């Protein structure tokens, strides 16, 4: 692979981009992901995960097994927002910015 070989097809990230991230101190797939966007695209790293992990292992001189596995993110494959929204949720973790602002303004007075 030369520096221009694409490792993440979704985000068009090259070997050079990954090497650059590792040179900046990245040690895991997730570190490289945040610096380059490699693995953040539609396939969510299903294509590039192994290649990037191998590059990290090579450059650090250790085995692939020693490179921490990336965090998995729900959903495992893309689903339409309306399917996710079709359900009702039992909880209410959402907060209302306006309500919050009004409460703080009252506390101040």
């Amino acid at each position, binding site marked *: 692979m030369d520096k221009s070989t694409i490792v993440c097809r979704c985000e068009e990230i090259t070997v050079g981009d990954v090497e650059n991230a590792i040179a*900046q*101190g*990245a*040690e*895991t797939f*997730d*570190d490289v992901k*945040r*610096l380059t*966007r490699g693995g953040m695209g*539609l396939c*969510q790293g299903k294509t590039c995960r192994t290649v990037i992990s191998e590059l990290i292992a090579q450059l650090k001189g250790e085995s692939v097994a020693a490179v921490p596995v990336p965090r998995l*993110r*729900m*959903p495992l494959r*893309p*689903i*339409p*927002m*309306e399917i*996710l*929204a079709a*359900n*009702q*949720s*039992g*909880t*209410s*973790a*959402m*907060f*209302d*910015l*306006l*309500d*919050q*602002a*009004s*409460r*703080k*303004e009252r*506390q*101040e007075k």
Partner: protein
Amino acid sequence: MSREYDTIIIGGGIIGNGIAYHLSEVQSDGILVLDKNYPLSGTSGSTQAWIWIHSKSPSWYAEFSLYSAELYGYLQRKIGDIEFDRAGGISPFFTETEREQAFKLAECQAEVGIEIQVLNREDALAREPALSPKILGAMYSPADGNVNPMRLVEQYMRASKKNGVTFEYYNPVTGIEKQQGSFIVTTAKTVFRCKKLILSAGIWTRELGKLLGIDVPVKPVRGQIIITEPLAPLMKHTLSIMRQTSNGEVLVGNSQENAGIDRRSTLDVMIETANMAVKYVPDLAKAKVVRGFSGLRVMPEDEFPIFGVVPGIENLYVAALHSGITLSPLIGTLMTELITGGETSVPIDRFSITRFA
């Protein structure tokens, strides 16, 4: 053998890096940033990264946030492209009660010089056509915007390194002692000595403080976010629940949970978030969700920033706060003024840790 620095900053997130960069502009060497992982692995890498002002409350806090937002354009010119976009902020509302709240808030914000308008439905939809026609109106301010947090931290680090700052990653602090005017900072890999010490490790600042016998009253609050596939340009503004990035993805979320140190995404909150997304912007119904993630936000006990000197321990400083993205350049600037011995250009007394004593 210990390595010596003038100043050590513990925590390489948006706040620690902001302080490191601003300090490195006036103090050319002797600065070390320590991080237990790699920068962006914590809170700074898991945010929607709004630069948010208009619904901050009370108004003195909104005004403080505005000062920071004003610095962003200048910061971008200095450190390089951080995808800063002063898009303007919109908070839609759906009820008469909320409209009344909006007018009251707008009055307070106007008093401190924040440009803000309460729009009716027609004007809100003209400004942001992606919004649901079911809204009653919206608050709008041109002051708000957003930034790419990954680029911001990376550019801070690059610029700091150019200015002589040293970074140590994957090197957690295990002990801190004060001896004869120096701090001895013991880490997993090395022992460091420094004259000045800054604790800016977000939710982990509390644990660091304990090593020196001080209490920094912050706790983690979980916020979950969902992200769509890249979409054609859909919304122009930063909305009070979502934003579209420059490469087309829409990030949605405004949940808050007391879940401790637990960064899992949960289906119930993702469902609730998706419902809110479609309620605000109906066109998102067909958009595909590619991932969810959660971040542990810093929440001080009274929700306002804790930063400045720590009385009782000479040369010890703390900076732990919510809204780190919005406030980063201002905190970096003010902490630098404070550390280099000058007066701060904005009064910071109300942010002192002494208020919890």
